[in-house]
């Protein structure tokens, strides 16, 4: 990929701005990590301080209260399944909405948008009845279906936009070669939106992983809860155990961050793989 190098000064300036922003962003998070290793009493005594030995107790408490071993597996299962189903369906739908002009396309697009507007707290009552009718209360499959449906509006919307951006010449060339619709989709269009697809997966991963509300209502037995449920018990009305809260936050967030770091490589790889091929 040949690109003329921008002036060194401009490059340095860009890096400088990004570094500044990175510091602003990381500052509070570093504080969270440091404070997660201090006892709550110490945090109240002195807001800024170094980690202490008794701070480790926070992690022990958070680990047991968050039941990391059981809840972690459930969180992973539900998140992966929801993404596969949800983003999979959204990719198909986004392609259909982005590349084909059919009657009512705008309406269908707005239709999908409507789902973003439903507040989770209210939708829980009819969803509860629906899951109960399907016999999916207290099951990870029930959660999966809810989350998959929830990712649809945003993912479809975004992917339709990305698909629409692709040039039409590729499609026409493929058609002239006699390729069928499905071939065009899988061999040509799909690889082109790979970075976008990875991006959508990554941004949709977090809301599913971090959701505590649906498991709280739909799940009954301890073996089926997900990680954030354990976290929510730290935020109870009568208690503000900051040390434990921060430790739990670190535990719950770490897998997502690791996942992001891994996915990042793929996204970059997709970008540098040469889109203009």
């Amino acid at each position, binding site marked *: 990929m040949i690109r003329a190098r921008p002036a060194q000064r401009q490059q340095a300036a860009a890096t400088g701005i990004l570094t500044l922003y990175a510091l602003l962003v990381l500052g509070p998070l570093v504080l969270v990590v440091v404070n997660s290793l201090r006892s709550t009493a110490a945090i109240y005594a002195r807001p800024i301080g170094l980690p202490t030995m008794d701070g480790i107790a926070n992690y022990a408490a958070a680990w047991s209260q968050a039941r990391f071993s059981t809840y972690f597996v459930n969180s992973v299962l539900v998140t992966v399944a929801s993404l596969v189903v949800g983003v999979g369906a959204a990719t198909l739908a986004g392609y259909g909405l982005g590349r084909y002009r059919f009657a009512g396309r705008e309406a269908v697009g707005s239709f999908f948008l409507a789902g973003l507007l439903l507040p989770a707290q209210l939708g829980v009552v009819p969803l509860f009845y629906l899951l109960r009718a399907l016999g999916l209360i207290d099951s990870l*499959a029930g959660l999966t279906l809810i989350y998959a449906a929830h990712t649809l509006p945003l993912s479809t919307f975004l992917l339709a936009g990305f698909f629409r951006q692709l040039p039409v010449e590729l499609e026409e060339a493929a058609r002239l070669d006699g390729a069928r619709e499905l071939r065009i989709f899988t061999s040509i269009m799909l690889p082109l939106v790979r970075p976008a697809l990875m991006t959508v997966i990554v941004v949709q991963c977090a809301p599913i992983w971090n959701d505590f509300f649906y498991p709280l209502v739909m799940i009954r037995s301890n073996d089926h809860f997900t990680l954030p449920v354990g976290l929510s018990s730290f935020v109870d009305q009568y208690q503000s155990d900051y040390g434990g809260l921060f430790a739990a936050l670190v535990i719950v967030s770490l897998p997502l961050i690791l996942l992001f770091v891994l996915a990042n490589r793929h996204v970059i790889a997709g970008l540098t793989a040469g889109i203009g091929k």
Partner: protein
Amino acid sequence: MRRRTLLGTIAGAAFANADLTRAARAQSAGITLNVWSWQVVQAPIYQKIFEIYERETPGVRIAYRGIASTEYPTVLKTGLSGPGGPDLVMLHPYKSIAPYVRAGQLAPLDEAGIAEVKNFSPESLAAARLDGKLWGLPFARQTIQIFYSRKLFAQLGVVPPTTADQMAPLLDKIAAAGITPIAATGKDAWQLVNVFDALVGNTYGGKAFIAKILAGTATFTDPAMVAALAEFQGLAKYFPKFVSGVSNADARAMFATGRAAMFPGGSWELAGFQNAGMGADVGVFSMPAAQGNPGGHAPTWGYEDGSLGISARAAQPAAALALLRWMATRQFGQAFTDQLKQPSSVSGVVATDPTLSQMSANYAANPVPMIWVTDYFGLASPAPYAALMNAAQNLLTSATTPAAAAASIAQSVVEWTAMNQ
């Protein structure tokens, strides 16, 4: 093709898992009773207390589940109507049980058939009555008073006031020594309702005024209430600096670490202070009334914290009732009070903790029903509880005046009464 198989596998695994758990439970112990409550942090203590019952009643296992109080109403609403729901539930008091009662989600109690009902006073039982039936048995009576640090008071050479006019000099003396006299929050408005009643409840006329309000012969725009609101605003100078940025957790920490001398709040706070290292240093007193304190007992506000009821869909109603009756005995009440440090509603239970027993004694000698909880509770307008919450908070930031605050509370009563006709 692949996607379908994956989903099918997950669904199958989820179902199988659920079946296994149920089978295992049925095998190990004859019956498992599920108890749901909003007391999350206390879960291990409850589990220990329940072990007493499990030993005395072989074949019964109790599974306690604490649910964060902010989510509790939602979880309970749906939980009482689905599979795997609770057998025993902790219910909020007074009108709060109406949604569950009217939807038929609770089993009414046969008062005549339950001997333990006589372990409770009529006022306590009123918290679980609706539509002429009893829906649960009370468990804790929370009282509102002013906690103070014995150590700080001794250092400053002051004592808790016995008459109303001793309060102002006391506050000034503490402030002059550079210590925050009263640890109050300006952020968590719900707590301000407690602070309000604890500090200026007598100014608006205490029990007599409340009776007149309920009878309709007084309104909240009366001069007594305006005076109370004004006095509350005036006390702000004894609250922490930047009080509108101080959360309740911060206020607790200030009191527990000796940066503040007093903390007006509910009896449930005691455990937290003692566990934070204050131990026996915590003392309590109730604000003396200018109108007089019979027998030296200042009026103490209080209310039933809730009751324990039985789900209409309980799988084992007889076993659930047996557990409920045990939770109404003095044995449970004593364990509850001693280990959870909360005043039990069961009569005859005397707390071993001296501070706790003093709180209950204060209330028993001169009780005042906390009208905001017993009659006016709600978080949304036009509940007067919400109106007072907002009024008190706005007074602290000078976003309103005492007269306007009183008018808003009176207005809320008007709309509230009309709504609940």
